């Protein structure tokens, strides 16, 4: 299912099935094996896992296709996730409320907060009945030389 759309980009199409997360992880590992720092590779793994898991768990039965694209653009790695599930803009989701104690701590709702923290940028648009989320990851060296 991996098709190279140009020299620097790769695309993966996933089914709406939690078992697909393992295939996603292997695919990202392959893409980031060369030319990506361990920290950026970790961040990409984390954010895409969270984004795709959200679509699978909350996108509804309509989310029949989830397409993920990774592209290297000099020192920046751009990830695009597109799905035809329920409209959902993670950039507008409220942040978590810090819990005062273990007893009060709410279980869940951390995925989007982690995405915001580990990606360097996150943009959303709804177009043609699809959710399109773009995440950017900047290599530390590229960031310091800009």
């Amino acid at each position, binding site marked *: 299912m991996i098709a190279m759309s140009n020299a620097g980009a790769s695309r993966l199409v996933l089914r709406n099935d*939690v*078992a697909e*997360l393992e295939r996603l*992880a292997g695919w990202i590992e392959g893409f980031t094996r060369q030319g990506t720092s361990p920290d950026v590779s*970790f*961040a990409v793994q984390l954010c895409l*896992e*969270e984004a795709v*898991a959200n679509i699978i768990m909350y996108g509804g039965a309509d989310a029949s296709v989830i397409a993920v694209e990774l592209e290297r653009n000099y020192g920046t790695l751009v990830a695009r996730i597109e799905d035809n599930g329920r409209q959902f803009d993670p950039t507008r989701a409220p942040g978590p409320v810090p819990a005062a104690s273990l*007893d009060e701590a709410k279980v869940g709702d951390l995925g989007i907060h982690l995405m915001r923290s580990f990606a360097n940028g996150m943009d959303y648009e709804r177009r043609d009945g699809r959710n399109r989320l773009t995440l950017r990851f900047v290599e530390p060296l590229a960031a310091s030389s800009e």
Partner: protein
Amino acid sequence: MDISADDLAGGITKVVLRGRFDTTGAVVVELPFNKIATEKQKIVVDLSAVNFLASYGIRVLLVAAKIVKSNSGSLVVVCPDNNVAKVLKTAGMDALIPIYQTEAAAMAALAS
């Protein structure tokens, strides 16, 4: 991902998790981990061999810590300063579950 548990001196149980603590891995360890959390009072969870952590893994850790606390026990985590620790801190877990960089420090905290 796999999970193993050993009973140590002083009533401490050491739980070692290994591999990717992502959605796929968390589903595998969730039930055995909850069982240990229900049965044991002093638990040290070693994440040194965990190379990846996502929100579902955090959920499993948090639920286990809540179970242990509800039984008046305590659960602490050993995690070196790496990206897994960064995920724990970003998620605010360091304010809820004691996290130590070394097993010795975790053991000392549980023994006191």
